[in-house]
């Protein structure tokens, strides 16, 4: 059940949101497929030194590479682990191959399998059926991928168990103060991840009046009544992106390969850019004006539609 209390004020800063809603030992999902990956939340989790997290995400990406290297995780549930277009996730590989800074347990799916786990979690079903994995070795290395006979056709279907995170953190373009959240552009599995979770933190580029949300209701993907905390954190997804706000910092994704290649380099980066700043605001100031000039989105407005009757 969602712990969201309708009368409690939800707007708070990141320190309070992570302090109250992310606990040691939690299963944590910070989703976002390339788009809207909430690095601001991950950095606060690192600063607050959360431990023994089970991290789930389709693509661990740099965000989980950083959480793993900072010693926050004991297990990773994933379906594609690389630095897109660049190479390996060195922090994750060190944890798996050398148990540095600590061992990391892996639980592996394909994208479809992990999407299906979140769909089952959101629907509060115990599992989800899919026509997949026959002829693949994935079920042989992940005993949680099972099969079931369809009661109607007799067909053997693959199944994956529901994933119900303790907490899901969603980055979005905007929400109102009650957490009614709007996303445009790629929305990945953000909706499923939020509905599957016991606690939901929404982090937005802007908090807008409820009237703005009501003027375009088709864009709302998460209703406020399942949201526990709303955090306003402009540029909170950098080096990921927010459509209509800022572009992906592809240069940083490339640079991460060098930064993370050895443990010392990665640690030095965490010291400077995570432990060395108190908040996302300080991180943004430290990035300097160059980043806004380089990455700010050019306008490409949608036309708007008639919601009248």
């Amino acid at each position, binding site marked *: 059940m969602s712990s969201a209390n309708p009368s409690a004020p939800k707007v708070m800063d990141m320190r309070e949101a992570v302090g109250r809603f992310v606990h040691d030992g939690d299963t944590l999902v910070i989703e976002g497929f390339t788009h809207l990956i909430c690095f601001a939340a991950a950095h606060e989790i690192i600063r607050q030194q959360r431990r023994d997290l089970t991290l789930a995400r*389709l693509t661990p990406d740099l965000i989980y590479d950083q959480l793993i290297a900072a010693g926050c995780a004991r297990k990773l549930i994933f379906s594609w682990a690389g630095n897109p*277009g660049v190479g390996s996730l060195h922090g994750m590989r060190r944890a798996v191959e050398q148990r540095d800074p600590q061992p990391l347990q892996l639980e592996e799916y394909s994208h479809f399998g992990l999407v299906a786990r979140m769909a089952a979690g959101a629907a509060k079903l115990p599992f989800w059926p899919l026509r997949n994995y026959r*002829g693949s070795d994935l079920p042989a290395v992940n005993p949680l991928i099972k099969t079931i006979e369809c009661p109607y056709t007799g067909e053997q279907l693959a199944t994956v168990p529901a994933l119900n995170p303790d907490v899901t953190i969603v980055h979005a373009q905007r929400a109102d103060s009650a957490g009614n959240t709007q996303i445009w552009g790629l929305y990945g599995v953000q909706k499923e991840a939020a509905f599957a979770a016991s606690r939901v933190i929404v982090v937005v580029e802007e908090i807008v009046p409820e009237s703005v949300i009501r003027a375009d209701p088709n864009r709302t993907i998460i209703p406020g009544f399942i949201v526990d905390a709303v955090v306003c954190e402009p540029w909170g997804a950098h080096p990921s992106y927010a459509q209509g706000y800022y572009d992906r910092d592809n240069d940083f994704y490339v640079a991460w390969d060098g930064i993370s290649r050895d443990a010392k380099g990665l640690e030095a980066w965490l010291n400077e850019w995570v432990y060395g700043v108190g908040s996302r605001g300080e991180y943004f100031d430290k990035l300097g004006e160059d980043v806004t000039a380089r990455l700010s989105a050019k306008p490409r407005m949608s036309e708007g539609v008639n919601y009248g009757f």
Partner: protein
Amino acid sequence: MAVRAAHELADGDVVFVGIGLPNLACNLARATHAPNLVLIYESGAVGAVPERLPVSIGDPALVTDSLGVASMADIFQFYLQGGRIDVGFLGGAQVDRYANINSTVIGPYAKPKVRLPGSGGACEIAIHAARVIVVAPLSARSFPADVDFYTSPGQAGKYGTRAQLQLPGGGPTRIVTDVGILEPAADGELALVAVYPGVDVAQIKTKVGWALRVSATLEPVPPPTAEELTLLRDVLDPQHLYL
């Protein structure tokens, strides 16, 4: 390879696009013989017309001016499992004689020599797309007789044939390499069906880990046109991200 892969696409095909060379091939085909290609990305972009070469599979340029944006649950369940995808593109560290593809580990899974990124959407693309084009440079290391790990099922192998497994899609039907094209024969084993100009068949045979069959009649392979090369080098990938 980008030009060869582009030639595999027919106008009007609905294509599940991967990043890198397949992306380049699709945009080349769209700019030349296949203007009505529908590009779908697993990130959710449908009918994408990227104004710049996307660096990642979730690039914002895939959304701008696209026909639609779908959730990933819809992409995998309705578009892919629903049988709406004509062509999928796959790459991989290893491709075997029956076109099984490994993008998971080199060596044993529990103690890998090299840990690769994993399936992503590859397993389900190999199962559901009506046909799958594999793009990979040919070498004995990348084309062993058997892959170390079956990430994405090919035409046959230790689990049986596609017919025995009742897989809905066609699986890997064309393997586009840097020297020629392979295609599964009736029994599922890959055979050489096309050789690029200036390439020696005997040399190709040394670049696979099994006794490669050669088709009795090789397909003609025209060299890339000047227009195709100009488009690739000056328009589609001017920064040479993939070329």
